[in-house]
């Protein structure tokens, strides 16, 4: 399937689109709640941890060219482990995707469409994602290439639109809620970077796999920069961010933007960019879900699975009853599942697979010696 290979810049944007979507919704608020005013420090600390982790992951992937995490788990534990990991990842992607979708649709409903039932909006997004998947993976990645720069500029403007009101002293007290919360339990804030889960699947899709290292580092680097900027702009402009739970902190920011007397309340324009971003993310998620399905089910064609996964996401998106449950899923389920699945389980699998690889490749030598 040569034509489904993607280039390096497209891969970088693929990783980025995940973090951009999370920033729009609730991610900065989650981080701020955990660490208070020391969140910038925390983010710098986490980025360093993340880069070290990434370095190890890339090193461990060196032996397995052209295979993703599902293939590695097959090498390690046979079909059973492959199926388990595949199903875990499918559930993970589905839950994140549907929570994001539901959250965003709730925001849209509150702000712009009070009388439309929620499933209309969810269906609208899913319909577009299904159409996108019909065009093929190459098209989705290329459309992503157009959309992500737009959204990046959109978010940059959103961060700095209230720059006149920044109070840099809000970074004090420097240790926020305490040293413990900042560094030790604050390390769990690494869940913000779900982009890593896409890196695990990226290797077989690349045209030039020797660029894997630079792609991952650049992608994650820009993600950390954006998370940092979002946290800073929220922290410095509002003090109420620490005491009030709003539906979307970035939306709150953009509402107060004042570009002079001519353009006031420009939030609709920002929303256009965020809508495009979410659609792109949905298409990519369905793409990955169907790819994993295809692998673990040994299917010939992944197109029919698209409908199934769309219906699955629709059902899961409508499961929570209200914002409280959605918040719970986002704050607790998302956080711990990311840490466990992406950072712990996959890492262990990689290490074990490497050990097994060394063992199987040492044995022939030993026999040859004899």
């Amino acid at each position, binding site marked *: 399937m040569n034509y489904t290979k993607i280039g390096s810049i497209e891969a970088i944007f693929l990783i980025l689109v995940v973090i951009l979507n999370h920033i729009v919704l609730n991610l900065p608020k989650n981080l701020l709640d955990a660490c208070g005013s020391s969140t910038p420090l925390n983010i710098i600390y986490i980025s360093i941890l993340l880069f070290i982790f990434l370095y190890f992951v890339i090193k461990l992937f060196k032996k397995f060219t052209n295979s993703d995490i599902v293939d590695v788990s097959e090498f390690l534990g046979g079909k059973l482990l492959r199926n388990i990991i595949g199903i875990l990842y499918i559930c993970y992607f589905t839950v994140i995707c549907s929570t994001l979708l539901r959250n965003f649709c709730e925001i849209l409903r509150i702000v712009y469409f009070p*009388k439309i039932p929620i499933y209309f909006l969810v269906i609208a997004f899913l319909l577009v994602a299904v159409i996108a998947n019909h065009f093929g993976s190459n098209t989705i990645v290329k459309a992503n290439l157009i959309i992500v720069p737009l959204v990046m500029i959109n978010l940059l403007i959103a961060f700095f639109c209230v720059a006149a009101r920044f109070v840099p*002293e809000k970074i*004090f007290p420097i240790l926020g*809620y*305490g040293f413990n919360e900042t560094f030790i339990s604050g390390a769990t804030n690494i869940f913000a970077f779900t982009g890593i889960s896409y890196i695990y699947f990226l290797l077989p899709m690349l045209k030039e796999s020797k660029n894997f290292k630079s792609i991952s580092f650049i992608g994650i680097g820009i993600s950390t920069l954006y998370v940092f900027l979002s946290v800073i702009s929220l922290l410095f402009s*509002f*003090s109420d961010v620490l005491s009030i739970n709003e539906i979307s902190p970035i939306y709150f920011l953009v509402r107060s933007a004042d570009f002079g*007397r001519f353009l*006031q309340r420009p939030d609709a324009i920002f929303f256009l960019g965020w809508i495009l971003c979410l659609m792109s993310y949905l298409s990519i998620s369905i793409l990955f879900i169907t790819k994993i399905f295809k692998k673990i089910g040994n299917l010939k064609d992944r197109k029919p699975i698209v409908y199934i996964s769309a219906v699955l996401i629709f059902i899961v998106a409508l499961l929570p009853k209200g914002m409280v449950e959605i918040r719970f899923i986002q704050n607790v389920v998302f956080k711990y599942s990311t840490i466990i699945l992406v950072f712990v389980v996959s890492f262990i699998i990689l290490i074990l697979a490497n050990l097994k690889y060394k063992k199987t490749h040492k044995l022939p030598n030993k026999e040859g010696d004899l």
Partner: protein
Amino acid sequence: MKSGFKKHISLFLILTICLFSLSGCYNIYNIDHLAYAVAIGLDVGKNNELKISFQLSIPGGSSDSGSSGSSQSDNSVVNTIECSSIASGINLLNSYISKELNLSHCKVIVFSEEFAYKGISQSLYTLMNNVQIRPDCNIIISRCSASYFLENSKPLLEKLSARYYEVAPSSSDYTAYTESVTLSQFFSDFNNTFSQCYAILGGINTEATHSTDNSENNSEKDANNKANETSISSKANIENMGLAVFSGDKLVGELSGIETLCHQIITNKLNVCTISISSPFEEGKNISLRLRLKDKTKNKVQLTDSGPYINSDIRLEARILTMDENSQYLDEKNIAVLEKYANSYMTEQIYEYLYKISKEYNSDIDGFGRYAVSNFLTWDDWINYNWLDNFKNSFFKINVDTDIKSGYILMET
């Protein structure tokens, strides 16, 4: 035949979707069916309930009307309702007027003094929670009742009330007698642990409300007025001058024009302003200076046992506006004298202002807390210190340094 069947099915599906989509559940905010409120006023009603006034704009009068000035009845109308909460008030009004009320172009929210003394936190949260309200609308505390305020606000130089409300607070850019406070800024300060919130002070200026202050010093009389006290002889109209100081969500005091100027100097918000000091060269005469900030004001806060010790370094730059026959203000010696006078005048005013807000009002509207917080390591320590309560124990040291640059067109006579 199979592909034809498929086509028919898909066409049918598309049509059904279109039917459902076009069934009217979206067309809620059609532009023709909305009435736009330009200003909202909140008063205390009878039985201690709410009395809301809405100033609605009449769009027909805003285009080609031939009347020379614009009377209020031309392009807007004020409706007042007694109700128990903001949402029910909106509901009641909707049943009275022909179109649905929409608050997305509201420019000004007015609270009456009486209402503010009781505490405005519930209205504040409700308004911030509302999707339609713009967070950058101005918030005004009026010395008369809010409905009286709205009814008497006649735009002198504009046709539309909306534009009038937008432009009016921007006078703070060049007079510094008030400040353009927006709802989001108010809300942010309200939730802040560093500072307290404040709002614009407004009132209706009629003959009856002119200041009866008979102080000897003429120059002090000008800036020392609060809203609706300035003796301007014209028809009754709104006047925004001074600030309303809050502690928590309750109004605790008011600041006059000159005190607002001091506030702006300390918080680095001063653009340009004009003050009058008594002339050191001639008795009974005044010299007007145009002030701006030369450098940013440096504030330092040190926490001592007896309370916070606040240090302020202020640098101002002035130009001389008044000229007289035989005036040689720009001689070196004269400049030094003038600078000393200006320094002492400004220092005195700022000390008065600072002790007023700390001792009388106990409200840190200048936000000194942000400089104090760097002395703490963790958030809990800061909360335990309780800055906002401790502010009344603070003592100040102010350093004013004025630099007189030049005059305007005439340098010497």
